[in-house]
């Protein structure tokens, strides 16, 4: 007859409540691990999906995700000419925060290089890729915008034509995909008054110089749009992304481009590494520390629970010893209960997590390997934590039954 099961059965209500409490605690531990995994996953998911082999960014920067980077648009053509590069695109990204219908939307605007990239490779859950090079956008599900919704950004209004899943930055912001031109329009949007003042300033600067006086046409142009004015550069892009031709090595391409004095080139793996070791690493360490602390707290709580359970049973244990139960039976009684409690707690944590985690603001990713590891740790804790109770139980003398 299994004494542990009999005891649990007799105190089913209280045992269930204890397992539930432990389960909630373990759910937090589980969640902590899940947040870390989610962070790693979110952080690299976007750049993985964009599917780029080589990133070319502003010299000495770690852009375009880990820090700000600016390169001229013409860099695209230079990169495209490097042997081994199959295609090169401009890449624009920046984070904006807007209020929309009373909600605060934080979004990472990512420019797709029309017409080579219309967003066909994005994981769409609804809608379609971009079909025109203006005023359409694909948004992540996380932003809560539905198909057909319209959102004013800069001077234009954009319509949601597609919805993706899981496309978020390491900061947890949902991505918005528009064409590169649109992304720049959003990024460099200036109010009419600012544009007017800028043009007036340009004109008065030109008037003070010989060149302006000698070439009236130039003077006239400087008061117009910047594109008509060859002396002004076109707006910058964040980076240039390149895909290498089949058979070519990304490392070799990187080495070639790195020899140029004005930019830095890095492979996809290096970019991934930069994101993981930069912004995410510290959050990860913080989470890891908390998880360790919480695991230790769970261990202590479990030891105390098991110790109290044993204390309550001391009289019964003395009685069992009196009628001749060997230590093995008593050890089994306590340890089996500990394991049942630990595993029940783990089960409760998992089931609760299935309901709770999807409602968390950041992604919580439960990896089977992590779950298995946690289960192992809980099992080990159960066994270790029952040690205190076992130590007490083995010391009780059968005579204590009588001297009560």
């Amino acid at each position, binding site marked *: *007859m299994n*004494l542990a099961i*009999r*005891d649990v*059965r*007799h*105190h089913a209500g209280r045992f269930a409540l204890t397992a539930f409490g432990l389960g909630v605690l373990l759910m937090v531990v589980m969640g902590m691990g899940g947040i870390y995994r989610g962070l790693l996953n979110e952080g690299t998911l976007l750049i993985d999906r964009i599917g780029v082999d080589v990133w070319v960014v502003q010299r000495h920067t770690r852009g375009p995700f880990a820090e700000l980077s600016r390169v001229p648009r013409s860099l695209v053509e230079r990169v495209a000419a490097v042997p081994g590069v199959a295609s090169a695109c401009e890449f624009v990204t920046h984070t904006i925060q807007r209020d929309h219908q009373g909600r605060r939307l934080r979004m990472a605007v990512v420019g797709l290089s029309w017409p080579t990239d219309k967003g066909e490779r994005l994981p769409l859950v609804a809608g379609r890729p971009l079909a025109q090079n203006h005023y359409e956008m694909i948004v992540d599900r996380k932003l809560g915008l539905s198909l057909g919704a319209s959102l004013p950004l800069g001077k234009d209004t954009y319509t949601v034509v597609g919805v993706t899943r899981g496309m978020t930055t390491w900061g947890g912001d949902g991505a918005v995909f528009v064409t590169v031109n649109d992304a720049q329009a959003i990024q460099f949007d200036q109010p009419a008054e600012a544009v007017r003042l800028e043009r007036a300033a340009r004109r008065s600067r030109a008037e003070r110089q010989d060149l302006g006086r000698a070439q009236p046409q130039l003077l006239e142009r400087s008061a117009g749009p910047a594109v008509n004015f060859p002396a002004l550069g076109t707006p910058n892009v964040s980076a240039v992304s390149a895909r290498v031709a089949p058979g070519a090595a990304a490392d070799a391409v990187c080495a070639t481009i790195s020899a140029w004095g004005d930019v830095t080139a890095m492979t996809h793996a290096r970019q991934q590494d930069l994101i993981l070791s930069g912004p995410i690493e510290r959050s990860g360490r913080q989470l890891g520390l908390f998880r360790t602390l919480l695991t230790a707290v769970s261990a202590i709580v479990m030891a105390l629970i098991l110790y109290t359970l044993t204390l309550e049973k001391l009289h*019964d244990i003395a*009685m*069992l*010893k*009196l*009628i*001749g*139960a*060997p230590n093995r*039976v008593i050890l089994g009684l306590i340890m089996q209960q500990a394991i049942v409690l630990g595993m029940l707690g783990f089960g409760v944590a998992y089931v609760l997590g299935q309901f709770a985690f999807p409602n968390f603001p950041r992604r919580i990713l439960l990896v089977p390997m992590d779950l298995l590891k946690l289960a192992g740790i809980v099992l080990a804790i159960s066994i270790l934590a029952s040690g205190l109770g076992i130590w007490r139980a083995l010391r009780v*003398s*059968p*005579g204590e*039954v*009588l001297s*009560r």
Partner: protein
Amino acid sequence: MSSAPKDAPAVQAHDLTKIYGSGNTEVVALREATLTIHRGEVAALLGPSGAGKTTLLTVIGLVNPPTAGRLSIAGQPVLDGPDALTNLRTFRRQRLGFVFQQSNLIPFLTACENVQVAMELDGWPRRAARRRAMDQLEYLEVADRADFYPTSLSGGQQQRVAVARALANEPTVVLADEPTAALDSRRGRQVMGLFRKVAHDNGAGVLVVTHDHRALDVFDKTYEMEDGVVRLPADPTTATVAR
């Protein structure tokens, strides 16, 4: 164990002394207590409260080591000497049966399981243990409460279940501390009858602490105890019972 002679007394205690505490708080609970209970014999132990009766039972029951003295159970020295037992718990399980003053059932087991557990610990298969446990409970008229937990049994019912458990393993020595205190006189006699039966059928020695001198006639001999000293009066009917 095989070296013990078959006809050796069930219990042979010689000059057992037990001193609790030390210095100011020293209590001498047993003073050179000597007694013999033969196989097949049912003995009573009388005495006022605090005389040391429970102490004597726990010493004989191998749960309370005496300060001095010698003790043999079924002819086997159990405290010292070359034959001293090392595993007292196994010995208790196989040879001793206990019924004590207070409730001594395991609260998370049903009445039947309480009896069963003693047998299963001794290696009985579950089915057989259950059947025999039910027989015992039947005999003690608590079979209808077999699946109740101790807390929902009356004091007398609990006591009878405890008796059933003590006798389940057919012990050589039965130690009972006021087993009939919670019972009416008919059931009290029934329990005594059961002790007689175990003594007669299994050749067990039974030692019963009692305050009930109406039932003294069922005992083969009566020990009296006072202040830790055990005496054997010549005539049991003259025994004085202090309340």
